[in-house]
């Protein structure tokens, strides 16, 4: 290997635009206002659990929802790196961002890329206004990691499609407006070829949303029964048969963002607050230092993927790498906090106190390394990516 051959583990240089500094200060000022209102509570996993449509709308008023969408569709026309700055600030503060999360991260960019002009004009301005919230309808009971095996069907009708099947673990389906549903449109020989994506109105007749409770008792996700739901032609997203290509094309966006390592960051803040009460022990200092070094290093990798995306490439291997590292850190952080400041995790303690936040982070912890593609699957992608370069 010579210095000129790019290493498979090399990420591009990160240069944040000058505007990012100003933007960061603006977001911090906004968060201070929201803290004063009592909406930003420094809670872990706020992109899954913090649903607040009012907050989403106020954020959108600043131009910070769908901000990478072009201005002609109501977006702010800003870059990925600027969006990165905004969302990492929101997540670090534990702000309630889950209502618009999927719209902002996935549905918006996907509709922009694959949607018809009509779909863009209809959905994108609403997304950017924080008025239109999306869910992801991919997984099913028998299709998790092996997503291409989905059995939800879309049958041709005279002016559209009729969808039948059950989507599982659909986050926010009980409160959001639409879901992007992956369904089989052809029984092609190649099972990847027969899949298509549809925009499904979650209030449409034939949609039955059944709650699934998390072990904490929270209602965050659902089984979405599609019992012969009529979807007009205009709601097919992208080309018929391109569903698989479209889904996998989004992966780098989905996998490398700050939500893949910051979900438990608010717990570290809480720990430091506790440690300020008395002089820290050597072990506490060591562990805080080690965690911080790892957070910083993962953040740099994650920013590297954002820079690559900004430059127009699709760094899928690197994105998988960031997600495996980041989501493992989310769990390690929780375990470390527990071990260096022994406190019984208590879900009944006053909300926002350390024992309650610890309980919350722990109860959510198994999900970190499952959602969005399990870590075992990600590691397969990483080694394949590396071998292909040889």
């Amino acid at each position, binding site marked *: 290997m010579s210095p000129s051959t790019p290493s498979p583990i090399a990420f591009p240089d990160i240069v944040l635009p000058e505007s990012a500094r100003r933007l960061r200060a603006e977001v911090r000022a906004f968060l201070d206002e929201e803290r004063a209102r009592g909406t930003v509570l420094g809670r872990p996993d706020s992109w899954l659990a913090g649903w607040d449509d009012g907050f989403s709308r106020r954020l959108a008023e600043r131009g910070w929802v769908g901000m990478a969408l072009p201005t002609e569709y109501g977006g702010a026309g800003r870059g990925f790196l600027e969006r990165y700055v905004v969302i990492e600030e929101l997540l670090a503060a534990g702000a309630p961002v889950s209502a618009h999360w999927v719209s902002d991260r996935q549905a918006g960019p996907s509709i922009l890329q694959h949607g018809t002009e009509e779909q863009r004009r209809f959905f994108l301005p609403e997304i950017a206004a924080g008025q239109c919230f999306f869910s992801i309808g991919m997984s099913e009971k028998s299709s998790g990691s092996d997503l291409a095996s989905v059995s939800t069907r879309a049958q041709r009708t005279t002016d559209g499609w009729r969808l039948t099947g059950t989507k599982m673990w659909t986050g926010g389906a009980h409160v959001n407006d639409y879901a992007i549903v992956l369904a089989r449109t052809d029984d092609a020989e190649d099972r990847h070829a027969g899949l298509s994506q549809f925009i499904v109105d979650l209030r449409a007749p034939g949609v039955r949303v059944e709650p699934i409770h998390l072990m904490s008792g929270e209602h965050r996700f659902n089984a979405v029964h599609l019992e012969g739901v009529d979807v007009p032609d205009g709601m097919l997203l992208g080309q018929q048969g391109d569903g698989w290509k479209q889904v996998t094309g989004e992966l780098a966006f989905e996998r490398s963002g700050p939500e893949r390592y910051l979900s438990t960051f608010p717990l570290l*803040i809480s720990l430091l607050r506790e440690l300020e009460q008395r002089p820290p022990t050597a072990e506490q200092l060591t*562990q805080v*230092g080690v965690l911080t070094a790892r957070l910083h290093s993962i953040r740099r990798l994650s920013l*590297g993927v954002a820079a690559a995306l900004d430059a127009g490439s699709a760094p899928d291997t690197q994105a998988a*790498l960031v997600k495996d590292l980041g989501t493992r850190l989310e769990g390690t952080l929780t375990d470390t906090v527990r071990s260096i400041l022994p406190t019984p995790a208590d879900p009944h303690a006053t909300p926002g106190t350390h024992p309650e936040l610890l309980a919350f982070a722990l109860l959510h912890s198994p999900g970190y390394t499952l959602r969005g593609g399990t870590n075992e699957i990600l590691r397969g992608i990483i*080694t394949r990516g*590396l071998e292909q370069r040889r």
Partner: protein
Amino acid sequence: MNTHTIDTGTPVIPADAYDTTVFYADADAIATVTNTTAPDAVALPCQDASTAELLAAAQEAGHRAVPAPLAETALVARPLLRRAGLPVPDGPLSYAIAPELTIRYAHPAASPVGSAGCLGHDDSLLVTGTLRRVPWARAATAVVVLATAPSGPVLFTLTPDQAILTPGGNLAEEPRDDLHLAPLEIPAAQVRRISPELLDEARLRAALARSALIAGAAERCVDLTVAHTTARTQFGRPLSRFQAVKQEEARLIEEAALVRAAVHAAAAPLDTGGAAAHFTVAAAKTQASASAAEVTRIAHQLHGAIGITRLNPLHLATTRLWSWRDEDGDETYWAHRLARPLTATALWPTLTTTP
């Protein structure tokens, strides 16, 4: 019968297997190395290279296990000499930061009002003690020492032949020599008073140089492991086809990527200094040292028995990693330095001071 041959007469162990120079066969622009006693053969990066370029060179040196103090010279000794206003000698250099020495002025009685202040007529020093485990001391044209004199922090140079040298080595058998100074007079021309900040910068430079070497060696572990698991077949398939192998290999790759990212993050801050330099370098060395265990564990596990022998170059990387993680401050030292200034309100702004 020769136990090193099998029936066909083909040697099991190639004749040159124990000649470690074969592993350096790809050394070119950065280092043309013949053997460890000919350090002059190492072409060091030019003096005006940027910090980022020097870090890349150090990383490459770590990757190739270059047997010469390239990082020590280019990233630590040379810049420190320049910052202190001393001439930079040619050839490989080394350093000793804050060693335990007894330092007095050499001519305390000559004049009470010389340029050195109240203690002597000049800054000549009389130094007694031992510089321990100096990297590549036996091969260095000069050793840069940063220590505390009666007047405060000083930087001075000495040549190894002025001291009694006890050879030593680290786990990779890189020279780590003790230099006994019993006592040694350092003429004023080789002494400069320095600010406490430069002493701290020296620590940061040494830690980051070492981290870059670690990043390179970690990447060597990745390259060797991926090559091995794709080439070696068991149960009729390459090892890399097995899920259990993939899972471990991916973690190895990730850990190496992490170290590299941490080192790169510190390049620009090192030049500008201040709190950002302190944070990013402390994070880099903490991460680099902490990752060494996982990197070496996985690389060895996936190599099987051949990895623990000199038949295979893996040891060049792993033995260096086991030593380098401790040198210039281990992860505990740097984690403490990293964590001490952090508070609940300072943590996030600190993490985001660099992009």
